[in-house]
């Protein structure tokens, strides 16, 4: 069977300072159209298998404090 690869094209980094913010976690989970963010009791988690589905809408960037969420295009070195 062929393997499945994740995080080939896009990575998302959430700053440590806001990672535990449950309120923000819920907001991020809500706005992302491709379910990259999951809200848990301990805050926000990245759902790795959905990273490459990112549509670059920036709704997560806008929902968080400036610079707290970074969407990284891994194909841009």
């Amino acid at each position: 069977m062929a393997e499945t690869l994740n995080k080939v094209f896009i990575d998302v980094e959430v700053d440590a300072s806001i990672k535990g913010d449950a309120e923000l976690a819920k907001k991020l989970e809500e706005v992302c159209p491709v379910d990259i963010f999951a809200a848990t009791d301990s805050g926000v988690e990245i759902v790795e298998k959905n990273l490459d589905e990112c549509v670059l809408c920036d709704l997560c960037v806008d929902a968080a404090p400036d610079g707290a969420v970074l969407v990284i295009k891994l194909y841009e070195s």
Partner: protein
Amino acid sequence: MRFYEYEARKIVELAGIPVTKYGFCKTAEEARVAAEEIGGPVVIKSQVLSGGRMKAGGVKFADTPAEAAEHAEAILKLEINGHMPRGVLVDPKAEVKQEYYASVVWDGTAKRPLMLFSDMGGIDIEEVAETHPDHVGRGHVTNLMPIPDFEAKQTIAATGVTGSQLNRATPILAKLARLFRDYDMTLAEINPLAELTDGSFVALDAHMEMENEAVGRQKGLLRKHLEIAEEDTRETYEPSDFERNVAAIDAADHRGVIQGKDHGFEGNLGLVIGAGGGSLTLTDAVRSQGGKPANYSEIGGNPSVAKACGLAKEVLEKDGVEKIAVMMSIVSNTRVDIVARGVIKACLELGKDPGETIAIFRIPGAWEDEGFKILDKYGVEYCDRSVSMWEAAGRAVAKIQGAPA
């Protein structure tokens, strides 16, 4: 969706058109019983979704119930054009005075159902239309109003049929037109419509086809009256593993649409192409320039990376595929960068080098600049809208055949 003859008879019967006292039998014993009940000479007919039954030995006459059972036994085991019968129809051998033809089809130019009637039934209607045009009557029916008998009467009268025959055939053709409309048929044909020696009219054979798009709203007929299971789609041919896998990937994810066909295709160049018209154009372009497509496909709407990847992987995993060409007509709705991610990922997941494996990438349109960045990073050869679909196909063919592009 196609129907077996025994189902078509049932449909015709439901519409109020006279049929024979036929029996649908799955065993030789059932056939014997049916022949006994009929109590006279019978015809045993294979129930397969194929033509040419007579020639293949799938239609036999029997004078006694024992003979009927014998013929049924043989026919139930007889494969016709790759199809095994579901059962046999046991029909009383009719005392026919004259055979007529009646059908209803769609007329795409008039945008109405068209009734066809001929007093030269039992043979190929297209032949009759060519050699004896004044023996074929044509008439359209309205889409909006209830279908009146007189429209059928006019169609029949145009062939010269008159007298009691006209009066008996009229309600039958009218009912056929109504069932065509009510049941969303694309074809409703009775050939022959027989006038028996006693003057009565009866449908000796029936052929029905329903529009696939309407199957969802005909549950009453399909599930209740005909007891056809939902999975029983009666495709014209058995889908291949490739086709089934692609359909499964498509069904599992609502984002965008993919389709793959490989029936009748054999080649080394996999095609990951779209949209509908683009796929047709590109498949022609590849073949016309000496390429050998391994398949046909269609990408439509706005598929996810996973869906695009899924299609590309299925194509790459086909026997004999060496490279894929990823090409579409200009896209407004599909995202170029998303498709780029999908096809590159397919290569990576299969342990293949995207630059080597993707012979050409030609999708101009939405988010193309972002797509080009991705393609550049992975060394995939691509072209923009200034390169025509024809030329892009040519480059793919040249690449796979080893000539300098």
